[in-house]
């Protein structure tokens, strides 16, 4: 590195740059917090949706699936699973969820296996509500198609 560029100058860029961009990040975060309610529709987070999120976490669903593209890549994306299997109807989707969850594990030789989580009907309802709410968040139209 050039000699007329001193260690002091390098240090100042480090301190100045990191403080400036950290404050900018805080400012952008503040702005995002103001904007998010319009995009995530938090007014629709019912008790069932919140309970569904808790079930999602307590059964480590994200250990195989992704949700909005985040998680594991071993099993299908579920952020848009309502779009994929619901056909626009919450009733259709819930009926699908109840039977699908009851069918596990499929025990097809060599196929990736989803465990049986022994969820009650009410719990599957909550989980479905959580996934329906998630699919309605404005996330810049991801994924590109319904396959996720």
């Amino acid at each position, binding site marked *: 590195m050039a000699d007329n560029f001193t260690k002091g100058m390098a240090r100042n860029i480090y301190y100045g740059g990191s403080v400036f961009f950290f404050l900018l990040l805080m400012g952008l975060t503040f702005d*995002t917090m103001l904007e998010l309610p319009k995009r995530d529709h938090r007014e629709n987070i019912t008790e069932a949706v919140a309970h569904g999120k808790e079930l999602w*976490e307590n059964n480590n669903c*994200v*250990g195989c699936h992704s949700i909005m593209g985040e998680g*594991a890549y071993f099993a299908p994306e579920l952020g848009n699973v309502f779009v994929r299997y619901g056909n626009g109807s919450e009733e259709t989707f819930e009926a699908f969820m109840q039977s699908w969850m009851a069918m596990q594990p499929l025990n097809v030789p060599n*196929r*990736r296996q989803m465990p049986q989580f022994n969820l009650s009907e009410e719990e599957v309802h909550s989980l479905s509500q959580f996934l329906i*709410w998630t699919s309605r968040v404005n996330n810049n139209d991801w994924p590109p198609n319904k396959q996720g």
Partner: protein
Amino acid sequence: MKFESQSVAKPYFIFALILFAGQILFGLLMGTQYIFGDFLAEYIPFNVARMLHTNMLILWLLFGFMGASYFLVPEEAETELYSPLLAKVLFWVFAVASLATAAGYLFVPYAKLAELTFNELLPTMGREFLEQPTITKIGIVIVCLGFIFNLGMTILRGRKTVVSLVLITGLIGLAVFFLFSFYNPDNLILDKYFWWFVVHLWVEGVWELILGAILAFTLIKVTGVDREVIEKWLYVIIAMALISGLIGMGHHYFWIGPGEYWLWLGSIFSAIEPIPFFMMVLFAFNVTKQRRFEHGNQMALTWALGTSVMAFLGAGVWGFIHTLAPINYFTHGSQITAAHGHLAFFGAYAMIVLTIISYSMPIMCGRPQGNPAGAQRIERFAFWTMCIGMLGITIALTIAGVWQVVLQRIPDDAEALSFMATQDAIEPLYWARLAFGVMFFVGLIAYFASFFFGYSEQEESNLTATTTES
């Protein structure tokens, strides 16, 4: 070894390597389950194997960072560690907590584990990489606080170098941002937004300070280049890391709810994230060219150079290829993400820990000029086997990812293949990945073997001769 208390690093490194081996074994299991979906699925379902794979990685890197700090800070500060006893106690606390958590994952169904650890009191579990029970998370915070206190007191008592100040800044950042793991609201979008404050601000933020400090320390030691020169590089590298990385967090905010300006900010700033890694390559090779002596521990220098190159490829190049929003729209959450994750974690963070282990372990075992030539030859074989194995994994997953995008993401609703059908189609790449995984494992075994390789008779007699002369 200049100070007796530096040797508290030893158990940290040994335990780190044990967890590293565990991580790789569960990785191989998952690589197999990607091909034979039901392989051992009854006993170790994929989600459990993945939790063990990623959590063991995080833990062994933390053990490695701690060991590195305990070794490096007293030497930089030119004083004994403030409290070696505290370091030893915290080691056992952390080791036992890690093993208990791993056992919990392995032997108790996850929902049961959440219940047993009273997750409902302060729900933090079940989120990627933050699967640890809340009680374990609290333990991690306590261990980190004790650790930072111990180092801070040592630095305050002794010489304050740029290396140790950058290191402790990184470690404090690590502890502070980990606190966001306790924030888990009902709103998934808020949860995700602040989840990245742990994950992104760790690996693309403060961990780069830790990486830079350890690399700078090792290069000072094995090249003898003037500290002033090395510290200037260090400042510029970490400056660029934070300038690009802080707003670069936007590349995670494209598709999880936050507004549209993040598409621009995330693309622009994360596009410059490779620069600090490129500078790290220039730094390492420049300093090596200017070295004042040939250090007997050639492997330490090899690891240091290797870290800079592999970190640049994994974090820099493989990050860049899918970071621009129009591309990421199609690649987000595909096997390309997995490819990047593997090479970046290995190249940047696994390799920097292996670098400091390679430099410091021989010293702690009474070999200041490095291990015997035979041991270094085996370690060199291990270095290349692991690096090529990991590059193979990365390339296989990248091709798998591109193929996945072509089949599943680019076509419209009517034409796109389903996720499961796509996975069947790209199976040949999973075979390649598994093969390179086995290669990596061979490298790992060789690496462990290198620790048990002594002097030849010739070297032994030379050593005795030198000792009697002096």
